[in-house]
């Protein structure tokens, strides 16, 4: 099957009238995703790509009770408000694409999501795709959507850009994906590697997982702990970026908000050592990943 999203996914887009929101809406509809409604305060009654727009999440749910996923693409300063609105409306899966959300706002979103048992993916997520079933967000847009093919590999990536690159590299070797998730690389994230790995662990279709990590945070170190304790048993191939960052001062912020150079815990060596020790297979380049996967899964 897949994780997080499938044929039963029914989507609400908060921020549907914006440039990115309407584009994501169009792309999702083209992919076959069921987008039932959108929200934009003040634009109730309008339509975007034939999808009705409401002023509030509550109102959208009243008219479309089957909505089970919200995609949030609103300005950073409005993201906390939009996410809390979705959480309090009881939508069980929220995918936040907005970048540069202040970490203090993300921590408030995460705290309430935990209390109400809502799963949040993001902020700064590129989206989620279960190839040929459903896609939510900007992941696999336009002609790129054909690069994601159905298959036995789960992908979890801090980097949005790397999701398509990894799908291309795996596809060249005939390896498709069950689900590809962009978890974002903010300081405070709704879902980390381990949260997604635990879902892939239960997914019958997924035989192995690829994780793309980078310097900053301790998400990769936590993966190592779980693997070591055998809480995650399916094979994992990891590619970690930022070996060169020893050349930059500690505290330097790289491309992603959470990619902060550290020469200790959270740094490149700390992650590599922990993962290596735990038994996670490390790839040196993207192209090595499918070769390692085929070896592990004994695929010729």
């Amino acid at each position, binding site marked *: 099957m897949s994780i997080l999203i499938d044929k039963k996914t029914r989507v609400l887009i908060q921020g549907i009238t914006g440039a990115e929101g309407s584009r994501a809406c169009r792309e999702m509809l083209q992919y076959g995703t069921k987008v039932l409604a959108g929200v934009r305060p003040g634009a109730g009654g309008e339509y975007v790509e034939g999808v009705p727009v409401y002023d509030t999440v509550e109102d959208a749910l009243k008219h479309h009770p089957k909505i089970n996923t919200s995609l949030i693409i609103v300005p950073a300063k409005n993201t906390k408000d939009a996410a809390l609105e979705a959480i309090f409306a009881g939508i069980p899966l929220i995918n936040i694409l907005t970048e540069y959300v202040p970490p203090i706002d993300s921590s408030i979103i995460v705290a309430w999501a935990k209390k109400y048992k809502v799963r949040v993916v993001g902020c700064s997520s590129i989206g989620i795709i279960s190839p040929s079933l459903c896609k939510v967000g900007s992941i696999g847009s336009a002609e790129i959507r054909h690069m994601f093919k159905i298959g036995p590999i789960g992908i979890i990536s801090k980097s949005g*850009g790397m*999701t398509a690159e990894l799908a291309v590299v795996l596809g060249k070797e005939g390896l498709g994906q069950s689900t590809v998730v962009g978890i974002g*690389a903010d300081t405070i994230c709704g879902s980390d590697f381990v949260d997604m790995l635990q879902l892939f662990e239960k997914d019958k279709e997924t035989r192995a997982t690829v994780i793309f990590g980078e310097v900053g945070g301790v998400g990769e170190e936590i993966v190592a702990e779980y693997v070591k304790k055998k809480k995650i048993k399916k094979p994992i191939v990891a590619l970690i970026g930022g070996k060169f960052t020893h*050349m930059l001062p500690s505290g330097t912020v790289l491309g*992603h908000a959470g990619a902060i150079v550290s020469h200790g815990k959270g740094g490149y060596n700390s992650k590599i050592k922990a993962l290596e020790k735990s038994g996670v297979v490390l790839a040196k380049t*993207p192209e090595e990943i499918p070769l390692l996967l085929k070896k592990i899964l004994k695929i010729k």
Partner: protein
Amino acid sequence: MKLYEFEGADLLEKYQISIPKRQIVTSIKDKVDISFPLVLKAQVLSGDRKKVGGILFANKKSDLDKSLKNLLGKTISGEKVEKVLVEEKIKRIAEYYISFSFSGALRAPVLALSKKGGSGINDASIFPINMIIGLQPFFIRQALTQSGFQSKDMNPLCAIILNLWKLFVDEKVILAEINPLLKTKEGAFFACDAKIDYGKRRSVETMDGDIAIIASGGGASLINIDALLEAGGRPANYAEYSGNPKKEFVEKITGEVLSRPGIKACWVIGGTASFTDIYETMKGFTEGLEKVNPKPNFPFVIRRDGPRTKEAQKLLADFAKKEGYDFFIYGSETPMVETAKVVVNLAYHKNDRKDKK
């Protein structure tokens, strides 16, 4: 982006946290109005200034002149000292550590406390903040008690911590640290060093090498520079644009990265984008390139794929032909990290140009 100590001190003062009397001195001719004894602190961003003599003391005028002369113009961890913070020396009976930062693992902001000032966050007790109720005074009192603080310090410390929290939230910083917080015999408290970090990034981070890099994708940029090092290349900078950048932003980065002297090649590198308009970003690149003076005569290796790639590649090829540039253009058929070898070859072994397309 970290603040200098004196900027941090101004910010603490704005949030009603007591700071010793202080003054910024930029020349030995500046008149110091604070009475002795004094502490003189070089204003640099490096955390090791104390170890390398960046903090000095003065009990009389002759000490002050000598120490100021010593500090001004000194270089600490590659940073020239241009300002010295002169501060009244507070007679202390204790030094504490207080900070707010974020824990990715706990997915919450954390209060860190230690009765040993001077040492860092690693020796402090960590208290994650419940963001459903926000930071409440009772929580601070519990944290202080658990960390072994005296009951008579409870109320003044609680007030300081609440003010620091207000700064942390309102200024949207990722670190607000007072280290040390000094306690006087009279029971007053003074923040004697502040570390405030906004966590913002600069568009370009300068490095020592000679291959200019214009990378896209936060993650891809990292593995690509790793690959460049592996191939024997020396990066001149780290520069990255993500998402769907405005053409003007790409243009600005291009100008900044290529204007440095000593560049031997330029690598425009990125993965297969999902939604970035490749044509727009490459247009920004060529427009930035047109403005670089003197006109670069080194080779360019460009690898990028995604929406509107074909149009982008045509634009690049036409531009190179018209303007007389050496462009080596690749798409997703060539692995990103392969092009690291290409750019290294072109930069350092000019005769070996078999890869030209």
